[in-house]
């Protein structure tokens, strides 16, 4: 019985984190992006520098009308946001922030997280197709093309770190982590981060939602709460990607006084990576479709294959 209570407690904490941390990232994006563009961003909601802006947005979204276009495929259209959102929630369960501080440590954690993250895109494709809108359809096609180009380097980069650690358990990977991985696994870290950005359709890889040509890509017909869920999925995706990058490549809870404040280290590193996600969005222009494909197939894939070879040699040399 006590075990069941503990399980429920862990799961409740994960759910809470899922509801709060993406909003934090969103707020950071609001403010950091604004200041990077010499603006101030939201200032009113909540009083102090608009800290409650996203809460206010949520309250607004819940009250908005639920519009389903007449031409749309109603069932698929309505289900799509949930399908896009839930995979990230499930993925969060397996990400550890400290030794033992994890929703559930799975033996196969890394592979599990990577597999589950790939499911979210089905929700976006469902939305793109079911809207019966030309912009949405084109956006959907671009989402699929982008996912197929970047999922492979993403998975291969994850495989590289699994090889280095010799385990698929995320806790095990952090325990095997060593500061010199920062150098040894640097190409994999880069590929993982870039491919992850592309999978989340974050700028500069936001051609599926390129507003100047496709309005809002697959989400064009969405409004109100369903739109909010898609946006929440995007930010939850940033959190999962940042946390994974921190745990796999930046050593998770390793740092000074890790016995006492290890979890803080994980959170700080996650926050840092999330900030870089925002930073990159402001700094770079959108990639064109052909540049996108070239970067993936002729840049990241060869780079990560090279990294795999380096990792394999490194591991065997060190273990013998």
């Amino acid at each position: 019985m006590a075990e069941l209570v503990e399980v429920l407690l862990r799961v409740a904490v994960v759910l809470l984190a899922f509801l709060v941390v993406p909003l934090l990232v969103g707020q950071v994006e609001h403010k950091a992006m604004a200041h990077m563009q010499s603006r101030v961003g939201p200032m009113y909601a909540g009083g102090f520098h608009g800290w409650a802006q996203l809460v206010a947005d949520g309250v607004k979204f819940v009250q908005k009308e639920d519009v389903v276009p007449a031409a749309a495929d109603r069932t698929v259209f309505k289900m799509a946001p949930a399908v896009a959102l839930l995979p990230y929630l499930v993925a969060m369960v397996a990400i550890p922030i400290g030794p033992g501080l994890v929703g559930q440590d799975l033996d196969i954690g890394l592979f599990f997280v990577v597999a589950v993250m790939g499911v979210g895109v089905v929700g976006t494709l469902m939305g793109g197709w079911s809207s019966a809108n030309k912009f949405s359809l084109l956006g959907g096609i671009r989402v699929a093309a982008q996912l197929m180009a970047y999922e492979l380097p993403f998975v291969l980069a994850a495989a590289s770190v699994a090889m280095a650690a010799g385990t698929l358990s995320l806790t095990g990977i952090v325990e095997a982590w060593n500061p010199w991985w920062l150098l040894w696994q640097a190409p994999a870290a880069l590929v993982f981060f870039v491919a992850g950005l592309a999978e989340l359709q974050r700028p500069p890889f936001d051609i599926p939602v390129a507003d100047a040509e496709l309005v809002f890509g697959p989400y064009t017909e969405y409004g109100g709460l369903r739109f909010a869920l898609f946006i929440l999925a995007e930010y939850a995706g940033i959190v999962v990607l940042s946390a994974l990058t921190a745990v796999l490549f930046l050593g998770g809870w390793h740092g000074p006084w890790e016995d006492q404040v290890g979890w803080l280290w994980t959170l700080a590193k996650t926050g840092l990576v999330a900030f870089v996600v925002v930073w990159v969005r402001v700094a770079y222009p959108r990639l064109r479709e052909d540049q996108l494909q070239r970067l993936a197939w002729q840049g990241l894939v060869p780079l990560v294959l090279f990294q795999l070879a380096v990792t394999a040699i490194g591991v065997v040399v060190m273990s013998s």
Partner: protein
Amino acid sequence: MSFPGKGLLKGLAVTMRTMTKRSVTAHYPDALPELPPRSRGVIALIEENCTVCMLCARECPAWCIYIDSHKDTIPATTEGGRDKSRNVLDRFAIDFSICMYCSICVEVCPFDALHWSPEFEYAELDIRELTHEKERLREWMWTVPAPAALDEGAEPAKEITTAQKAAERQGRPTP
């Protein structure tokens, strides 16, 4: 020195530098904006100057000025003289939901009946309220600032020189 990825790093550096600087946002409505002279906020009307020549309404590219008038006859002041007729303005309205602030009406008015006021806070919840009738346009006149002083050594306005010449002819001392 040049190396691959230099441009990418430069991009990041620029945004980071901007972030550490103070933003340029004006905190309206907490701080009111400092508007330059001759800001185009709202158009004010001096009804008395208007002769219903209709130039403004005709020149308006957006057709947002509505003018109604009728003719009034003024009886002759001298015996056997002719009655005079005069245009009387019944309605003068500007629809600011259509107005594009091009300033053509102000420019073409031959009798200085239209002026720019820098007031801009006249948003409404109902679009029909944005059609300002002549009473409201008259009210805006009180917010029109005095014309800016002329540059040093500039020629005075034509009206003033003619007035001065007329005064000199009558032998009155000029101010």
